[in-house]
């Protein structure tokens, strides 16, 4: 009953997926015929089932999430305060701006050698690369949010007795910048996720979605490679969706009037 309703409602999307998978299966099995070049849909499904059954997929998920978590949490802990003081205090901005502008354009993956030298083959090293990817969007967006706090809100707060810089930041500037900050976090998490495969490439661990992708590539098991690619996509999408949902529901309810 319910399933039928869902199917009816999403008919175009479901049709599109079924057609794509069917085409893929036909092309892989009857036209290309070489698993190395293009594994078929069923090859990928069977590799999925085997990794689920052995439990390795779960471990890979956890390890990757750990790397990602280390990087993102560090980026939040550093990026948000840095963005806040840069956006709020003009002198801090002028002092830190040139440094940030020099570091920012460096691709996060270029930091890998130093990550390894400084931190060795550790989870933290993988986390560091993700951190570098995630931190700049968070800084920049927090900064922008704080820059664009409306003057009238600050003045209204002052007249109501909220005069200390710390209180103004906490009660006015921070909540008013939250849309910008969360947008920065989303972008930062996206960039961090992109860095995950490369960050795990060097074998900081024998598990992890990114590491496994390289490892199976080494064994020419392209069905596994493709399966891990899909897993990276799905997990990345899920993280973004969950975060977005939480933010919109809990933190940005007051924005519903705004056209995004």
């Amino acid at each position: 009953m319910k399933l039928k309703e869902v199917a009816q409602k999403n008919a175009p999307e479901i049709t599109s997926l079924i057609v794509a998978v069917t085409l893929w299966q036909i092309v892989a099995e009857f036209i290309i015929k070489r698993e190395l070049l293009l594994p078929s849909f069923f090859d990928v499904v069977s590799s999925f089932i085997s990794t689920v059954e052995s439990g390795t997929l779960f471990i890979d998920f956890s390890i990757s999430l750990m790397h990602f978590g280390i990087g993102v949490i560090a980026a939040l802990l550093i990026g948000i305060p840095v963005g806040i003081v840069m956006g709020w205090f003009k002198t801090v901005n002028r002092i830190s701006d040139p440094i940030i502008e020099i570091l920012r354009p460096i691709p996060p993956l270029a930091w890998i050698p130093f990550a390894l030298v400084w931190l060795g083959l550790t989870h933290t090293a993988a986390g560091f690369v993700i951190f570098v990817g995630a931190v700049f969007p968070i800084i920049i967006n927090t900064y922008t949010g704080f820059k664009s706090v409306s003057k009238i809100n600050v003045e209204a707060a002052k007249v109501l007795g909220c005069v200390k810089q710390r209180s103004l930041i906490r009660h006015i500037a921070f909540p008013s910048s939250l849309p910008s900050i969360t947008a920065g976090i989303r972008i930062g998490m996206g960039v961090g996720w992109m860095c995950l495969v490369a960050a795990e490439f060097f074998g900081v661990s024998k598990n992890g979605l990114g590491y496994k992708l390289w490892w199976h590539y080494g064994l020419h098991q392209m069905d596994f490679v493709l399966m891990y690619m899909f897993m990276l996509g799905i997990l990345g999408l899920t993280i973004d969706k969950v975060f977005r949902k939480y933010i919109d529901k809990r933190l940005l309810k007051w924005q519903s009037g705004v056209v995004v």
Partner: protein
Amino acid sequence: MGKVSIENVSQYFINREGYKTQALKDLNLEIKDKEFVCIIGPSGCGKTTLLRIIAGLENPSSGKVTLDGEKITKPDPKRGMVFQEYSLFPWRTVIRNITFGPEMQGMDKNKSEEIAEEYLKLVGLEQFKNSYPYELSGGMRQRVAIARALANDPEVLLMDEPFGSLDAQTRNVLQSELLDIWEKKQITIAFVTHSVDEAVFLADKIVMLTSRPGKITNIIDVNLPRPRNRTSPDTNQFRDRVLKILAEERVKE
């Protein structure tokens, strides 16, 4: 107590091209404790600037403003302000906008909510307690801003065209409510308006400004007894007098 003295206040603004605007010139005005003063003047004559200086949001280029003899240099909850433009905190619900002031003064949550509800009732918005500002109309937002300023229990309340965006009906109701509060709380009010009707109904004293540079041209004592009647012959006569003075000023310009 809330006696405001404005002594020789001038205010310039210098824009990016170095061009100087004189918003106020040599203003002298005494607002007595518990007095209701209305300020009338053409657009751009410096009414907002004057209120901002009293609030402490702006420091005058010269001269000084004192509250009970103490020089005003920065904002203080003793001097509340209702802004001309939209100033609610969009991320806070209506009730939390109103509790903001009391919370900042260190009042506990329950107590401040109690007070907020009282003022919410006063402006007729109880059922919008948990709405966000974007869900309110312009006039409703303004009423919340008024409740927010009142909930902070100021000694001097500065109101910059607070009823400008309201319909006549609501405007009349709120004028009466404001007078009630003013009498009950024994506060000083400086109220900017464009409406002579409003000024004659509310004020003890009407201050007229001219523009560029903003100067006081007339101070009219409104010695009509309270409670006032909007349409009594006395009121009508007085209103005619004020309108006549305004017209004369316009001719002079």
